[in-house]
């Protein structure tokens, strides 16, 4: 009995020593802490942050978006809302029949040369407070007008800060690029 418990104690002590050895070995290994504000994690690639509009090829101030509302329809948490101005003036100038045909065509094609029938995007608001970052909107976009931002450093004092007006963000970004 005594021998057994003594043996158990010895084995136990040995297991502690082995554990200490592991700690000692790791003590020498390289540090894995990322000193955050001074350096950042290198692996942000691929992270899905909130969405951003992609500028069109011709004009960096204009989004690629054609206001087809696909993203609004698919969004599970209903956080995207967009409004578009229908090109009424030009429709009035033309006769009705060719215009509607034109519109169908432009919708079918991606980068239609006829700009007339393209609805102008008026506002594009993403309420990031409700977003669940599923990425369904980006995938459902027929023109690739949405992208993920890798801005993970968001924090603020009110929740209204995260109701993102993507159109004005796009214009700010374009301005920054020009400078």
């Amino acid at each position, binding site marked *: 009995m005594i021998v057994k418990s003594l043996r158990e104690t010895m084995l136990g002590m040995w*297991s502690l020593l082995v554990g200490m050895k592991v700690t000692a070995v790791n003590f020498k290994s390289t540090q894995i802490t990322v000193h955050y504000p001074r350096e950042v994690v290198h692996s942000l690639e691929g992270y899905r942050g909130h969405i951003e509009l992609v500028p069109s090829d011709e004009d960096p101030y204009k989004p690629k978006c054609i206001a087809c509302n696909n993203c609004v329809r*698919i*969004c599970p948490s209903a956080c995207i809302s967009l409004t578009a101005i229908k090109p009424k003036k030009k429709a009035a100038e033309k006769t009705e029949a060719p215009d509607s045909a034109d519109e169908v065509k432009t919708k079918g094609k991606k980068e239609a040369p006829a700009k007339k029938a393209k609805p102008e995007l008026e506002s594009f608001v993403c309420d990031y407070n409700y977003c669940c970052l599923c990425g369904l909107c980006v995938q459902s976009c027929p023109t690739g007008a949405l992208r993920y931002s890798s801005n993970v450093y968001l924090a603020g004092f009110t929740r209204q800060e995260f109701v993102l007006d993507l159109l004005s963000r796009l214009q700010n970004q374009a301005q920054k690029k020009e400078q």
Partner: protein
Amino acid sequence: MNLDLRLDTSGDFYARKFQPTKREDTLILNMGPQHPSTHGVLRIILEIDGEYILRAEPVLGYIHRMHEKMAEVMSYPQYLPNPARTDYLHGLAWNWAHVAAVERLMGLEVPERAEYIRVITCELNRITSHLLWWGAYLLDLGAFTPIMYAFDDRERIQDILQRITGSRLTYCYYRFGGVSNDIDDRFIEETRKQCSRMKPRFKMFKDLVTDNFILRKRVEEIGEIPADTCRKYGATGPVLRGSGVPYDVRRAEPYSVYDRFDFNIPSYDTCDAMGRYLVRMDEMQESIKIIEQALDTLPEGDYIMPKAPKKPKPPAGDVYFALEGARGKIGFHLVSDGDKSPYRLKLRAPGFSNLSLFSEVSEGVLIADAVSILGSLDLVIP
């Protein structure tokens, strides 16, 4: 909505409904829902005699998030991000269960490459889940260091997964008929690197923790769950395998391409917390084995079927799809009426059944051991 959410002092609904034993001089103790060892928000009402538990009754529903109701409101693709939030540690498995249930109902053939990608990512996710459990369980038992090592590896795997899936935790990666984007060479290379890095780490984990006699005293012969109790309560996963029944859905009801891989199903018939602990430790190594095999035999081809339905409308009928999550058997019972959203969706959360045997197991044990048992069940409360 009831506006007065303040608790009344005479005990709330569950405390009043609690049925204590008929003994005198016992104390009723309320543990949780905000308690460090309850893993999330679980509340347990205990009747104790000194340090011994006479009766324990878990109260749950503190993070009930209406998943089943949501499924009926939303369309199939809109529900995609939600299953991962049911069990946030092994989100990909839930994501998979939802996607696969719909695929089965519609009779979709998933491309082989997509199946392989699913297996690889799901197994990686399983390792992260077990690592977190490992760290958190030892934290419950009073050891702080292991969780640091666990998170080191976990972060690395999460980096790999994040590059492909876009999120760290609540994945929304699988789509009906495939996955949302393809894996590339860098993913394969990084995964291989991580696999070879993990192997010596298991040895280290064993030296550091598993062989440690303080741990052994805390987990050996604690919380014995006989196999028949598991059956009566419907417990699955590592809890069941720790009781000596080598039942694994991946083997018993092979889904996807799991029947092509060679892996063992670890089981220990000690029935105690140590058995469950060892099962999980072994399972991580088996997962690595599966990942390496899958990477070796990864076929070329599409990652999503070319005509994958964007808005699926499965035919009327119902389907039950089960798969093996990190915590046990995940079941999706989907009843469709041919519309764009499910008629009824029932989720079988493994943690739910596993937790239900807690009140039987914890009778007559010490409070400190109850914490150990609770941790060894590895709960994510639905």
